[in-house]
Structures are given as structure tokens and as C-alpha cells.
């Protein structure tokens, strides 16, 4: 199918809002208390895919690897115009570093065989910018990083402008390609009211299972399973069942997944205490300022 786009997105803790409630008494960050958000540059990647569909046709499928609550970002994507969402979730994926994550995502993408894969340049929790390029390498797709604007998509040829920070490049490549998108590329469209009304009821299988477990705490396994199947079918018929795959369903080799599949291991983590140090305050008055300047001149910091 022409212009079939897959967008890889991630639900991340809002690391840009480190203040107040997110702080513990010892001045370190309580990571569990941070709200979960759609990784900002992944929104730009989704927007690029939707714009491709607007201009040249095709479809937009959004995938994410995470716990069942990551289905939130798939719903967000559906609200903004994505055609389909798929959650890749499996306990055996826990502890994956970027190499293992990119391996798992590449297995899922391979099943979808898209012409274009779009990723945000980097996620605000890991900040590595590694997963996009590594998915491209595993799939053998041509990598185009730092997409600033997709200029043309003619037949099987993509023309794009890349923002390299200290300049630009215009490049051309044959499909299939993987693009990593930077935040300067576009302004993501907001959710569309009608799509929100429809897709706010969309659920993935795990969410259905969790709901049934809450609603039928005394039910037998069989009863629960039957209800899960019934409800999932009802959702699917209305186009509201978010796809869900585990590692077996995407044909992943467990050797390359999770902690086992991760070459990088954490040796130590230290929390930063955001306070302290030798600090002196000077008054904002003419006098206070003059005293500060005198001191800076005396110790040769200025002058």
C-alpha cells in the first residue's frame, strides 16, 4: 500500500515539570509522582505522518511499547487523526535498554511493512535519540534524522530537509525510509472534538481485562474470559479495539529482549539534590549592587 506510515510513540514522565509535588523532602525527584505525557517530539512525528496522509494519501498506524496504561498515547493519537493504534506490551520486555527496545519495535514494524516509519528524535526521559536510528538499522530502512520538513513524496522517492543545528541539508532517498522528527518541524494539530467523542471509549485488551477484574472480582476465570472476549468483540465491531501484541505475536527472539537483551546496565543511580552550595545574597539597592561589583573587581572576576 502506498504511503503506509507507522509512527513509534512513547509515554514518558513529564521531566520538564520538576517542581513542587514531584520533589521529595530530601530535595530529590519522586519519579513516580510525575504525570505521564505523550513524548513531545513523538507528537511532531505523528503530525508529519498525518500531513503526509493529508497531502499524498495513505494510512497512519501508531505503535507504542509499554505497560497497558500506555494505551493513553494511542488514544491521543486516534484523537488527532491516526487510523489505528497498536500496543506492544509484555512483562518480558521490562528492563529493555535502547538496543532491546529498538529490536522489539522493529519486530512489530516488520509485521506492518510500512513505506515510512516516523519517530520523534528523542524521548524526554532517556534523552538518547538512539531508538529511531537503531530501528532503521534493523529494518534496513534508509535513515533520515532531524527531519525539518518533508518536501516531496513522489512515487517511491522522498525529498526532505534536515535541520542539523548548524545548518540544513536537502536529501532524497527511496522508500522505505525511517524519519526522526525534531520539534521545530511543525505544530502538532490538536485532538479533533468528534474523534475524542468516539475514541475516548477505545480500549486495548489488557485494559478490558483489568476492567473485568474490577467489575467481576468474584467471577471464575472462565466467566471473566468470556466477558473479556465479548466486550473486545463489541469494541472491535465499532472500531474501538486498540490492537495489542506481545513478544511472541511479533516473532521476537527473547534473547534480544528485556534486561537479558540489553548490553547497557545500570551500575548506580544518584539523585541530584536541587539545593545547597555556598551562596551569598546581595541587596538589589544601589549600595548592594555596588558592593557586589566591588567584590567581583577585587577578586579579578571582572575588571
Amino acid at each position, binding site marked *: 500500500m502506498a504511503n503506509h506510515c507507522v509512527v513509534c510513540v512513547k509515554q514518558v*514522565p513529564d*521531566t*520538564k515539570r*520538576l517542581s513542587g509535588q514531584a520533589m521529595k523532602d530530601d530535595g*530529590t525527584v519522586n*519519579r513516580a509522582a510525575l504525570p505521564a505525557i505523550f513524548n513531545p517530539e513523538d507528537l511532531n512525528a505523528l503530525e508529519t505522518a498525518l500531513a503526509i496522509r493529508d497531502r499524498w494519501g495513505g494510512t497512519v498506524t501508531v505503535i507504542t511499547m509499554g505497560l497497558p496504561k500506555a494505551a493513553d498515547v494511542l488514544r491521543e493519537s486516534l484523537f488527532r487523526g491516526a487510523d489505528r493504534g497498536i500496543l506492544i506490551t509484555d512483562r518480558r520486555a521490562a528492563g529493555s535498554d*535502547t*538496543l532491546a527496545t529498538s529490536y522489539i519495535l522493529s519486530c512489530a514494524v516488520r509485521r506492518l511493512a510500512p513505506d515510512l516509519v516516523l519517530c520523534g528524535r528523542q524521548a524526554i*526521559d*532517556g*534523552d*538518547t*535519540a*538512539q*531508538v*529511531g*536510528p*537503531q530501528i*532503521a*538499522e*534493523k529494518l534496513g530502512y*534508509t*535513515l533520515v534524522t*532531524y527531519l525539518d520538513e518533508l518536501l516531496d513524496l513522489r512515487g517511491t522517492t522522498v*525529498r526532505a530537509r534536515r535541520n542539523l543545528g*548548524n*545548518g*540544513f541539508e536537502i*536529501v*532524497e*532517498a527511496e522508500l522505505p525510509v525511517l524519519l526522526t522528527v525534531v520539534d*521545530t518541524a511543525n505544530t502538532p494539530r490538536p485532538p479533533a472534538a468528534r474523534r475524542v467523542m468516539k475514541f475516548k471509549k477505545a480500549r486495548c485488551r489488557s485494559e478490558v481485562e483489568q476492567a473485568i477484574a474490577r467489575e467481576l472480582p468474584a467471577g471464575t476465570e472462565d466467566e471473566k474470559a468470556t466477558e473479556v472476549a465479548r466486550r473486545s468483540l463489541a469494541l472491535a465491531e465499532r472500531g474501538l479495539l486498540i490492537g495489542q501484541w506481545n513478544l511472541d505475536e511479533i516473532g521476537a527472539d527473547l534473547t*534480544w529482549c528485556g534486561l537479558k537483551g540489553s*548490553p*547497557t*546496565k545500570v*551500575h*548506580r*543511580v*544518584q539523585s*541530584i539534590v*536541587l539545593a*545547597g*552550595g555556598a*551562596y*551569598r*545574597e*546581595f541587596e*538589589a539597592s*544601589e549600595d*548592594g*549592587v*555596588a558592593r*557586589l*561589583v566591588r567584590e*567581583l*573587581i577585587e577578586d579579578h*572576576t*571582572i*575588571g
Partner: protein
Amino acid sequence: MIAVNRKGEVWVFAEHEGGTLSEVPLELLGKGRELADSLGVPLAAMLLTAGEGEAMVRRLGQYGADKVYLVEHDLLRQYQTATYARVVCELVQAHAPQVVLYGATAMGRDLAPTVASALRCGLTADCTDLQIGDHTPPGGKELHRNLLLQIRPAFGGSIIATIVNYDRWPQMATVREGVMVMPEPDGRARATVVRHPVSFNGFVAPLRILESQRREKKVNLKAARVIVAGGAGVGTREGFRLIWELANCLGGAVGASRAAIDLGFVDKDHQVGQTGTTVRPALYVACGISGAVQHRAGMEESAKILAINIDRSAPIFSVAHYGIVGDLRVVIPRLIRAIRSGARIEGLAEPLGERSAASGDARG
């Protein structure tokens, strides 16, 4: 991946643009020398060019490389992922280094993950420090000695993580420009050249580069002894004139927080911070900057930090040496008056940047 090899060298990818080495590989040679000496192995650079690399080879030697692995081929004239990654993988598989370091530049962050994926080895991005140390996996009994400890902030800078890779070698890491200190060159030092012949065997480069524009940065923040930086608290683009005036009066350069850039007060070249430039001036004056962790990461090693902010609880005060709680629109003119009357500033230099008539487009 390659087998764990204790005789493996420490390598630095020598990034260059059209025959001129970037600064970051030279900075990495400085840290690389420490690591190599600690491990008792040679330090080498990988240089990929289309030819005429003699001047760069000389420079790499002067900055501490014992060897330069030189690969020359027409297909390497302009960087692209597929050609460069292919050559780097070949070099790594042929010579089995223990450690490979790259600048965390646009090129490095495109190349390094591709190589790591192809070699199925570990890669840690944006390291702020690298050391040699030992590691025992939790619940394990084996002691892995003399590993590369890859130290980096994570989670928006709220934690410092030390990462290791003990069995999927080489150990690879990227480091941002300005983080490691540039070593002093030794004019007499020479590197041995190891030519590595590469044949692309009819390989067709997948990317066609149609047009390429680079522009000189408007300001050299790394070289500035004094930086006066403005943040969102400056309020307006017109208000940023105060930052320029204070910088001029101190013979310093103008910096800015990400917020000020996004608000269009000044060009992106002036950005200080984790995604901008990392600086270590003798004096950093932060005006109307709240001090988010990403900004602090780019300036907290300044010798002296003066923070001016109307908000007493702004996190910037936690890294400052001096603080003035007040309206910068009142405080900065007072500072300027005090400086002008208090001293004659020697060597007052014209700032490198012109007053910005920025359209507010962060893409420049």
C-alpha cells in the same frame, strides 16, 4: 559485537567537516588519553575522508592520538549514515577496540546508534563523565574489572546514572561538545597512521545529498570569559537590550535559556544548556532565568555564577554563588552604572554577535 578484549585500544571518532576537524574529537582525545593510560592501551582516532587528510592526521597526533586509523574513499566525501557506519563497523571488527567515543553532535547521534545496532553492542548517550572502574552485577558474584563507567544525567537531569557494559563490546559512548576539557596540543607529537583499505564493492549510497548549507555560529560561547544570559524573565525582545548592554560593558558574550530562544528574544546560537552549548566561563550572569535542570547542566561549572531573579525560590539560586533578588529591569542598569564607575575594563572586546533582529524563528 566483539569479544571482550583487555588489550583493545581506546578510540575516538574524528568528526570533521570538509577537511577541518571539529572541536569535540579533540576534547575527547583529552579524556581518551586518561582512559587509555588507565587501561594501559594505546589511544587512536578513526578518520574517514575522501583524501587529503594529512593536516587532520597531524592535528590528531598533536592532541594526543597515538594512532590514526585512516580510511580514504570517494564515497566518504560527505557524511551519510550508511557509508560511514559500514566503515566504522569494519574498523571495529578488524581491530577490536575496548572503547569507542563519539561527539554527541548531529553526526555522532546519527552514526553511533547505527553502529551500535549493527554490532549489537552497548551505547550510552550524552555522557558528562567517563571513568574506569569495577562492577558487580546485582545478585551476581563475578567482578568485572576496569570497565568504562559511563556517567550521565537522566530524567530531565534529576538523577545521575552510571552505566556499564561488561559483555557486549565495544563499550561505546557519546559526549556533547564542551563537556570534556580540550587538552593542550603538543606540537612535536606524532601519530602513527594505519591505513585501512575499504572496498564498497558496488555499494550505492542510499541518500542523495542535494544541497547543504552550513552557517557560522553568530557567537562563540565556549571561548567567552564572561557570559551574560537572559531567560524568559527578561519579558520581551526589546527588554533583551539590557542583556546586550551588560554583556558589552563586561566584555562578555550574550547567552540565553531555551525559553528565551523559544520566545524569540535572541537567536538559537546563544542558547546555553543541555541542548544548547555547555559553557564554563569565569563569570556567568543569569538574568531572569529560573534555572531548569536542562539549563543548569550547561552552565553550573562556571567559576562564578551571579543570578538575578525576581523570584526568591527560583532554582537558579541553588547553583549561584551570588544572588540578587529583584527586578532585572532595575538591577541591570544599576550593575552597569556600578561597573562603569568602579573600574576600567581592560581589553573590552566587541561581542562577536550583532544585536539580533531575530524573527523569532528558532531554526535560524
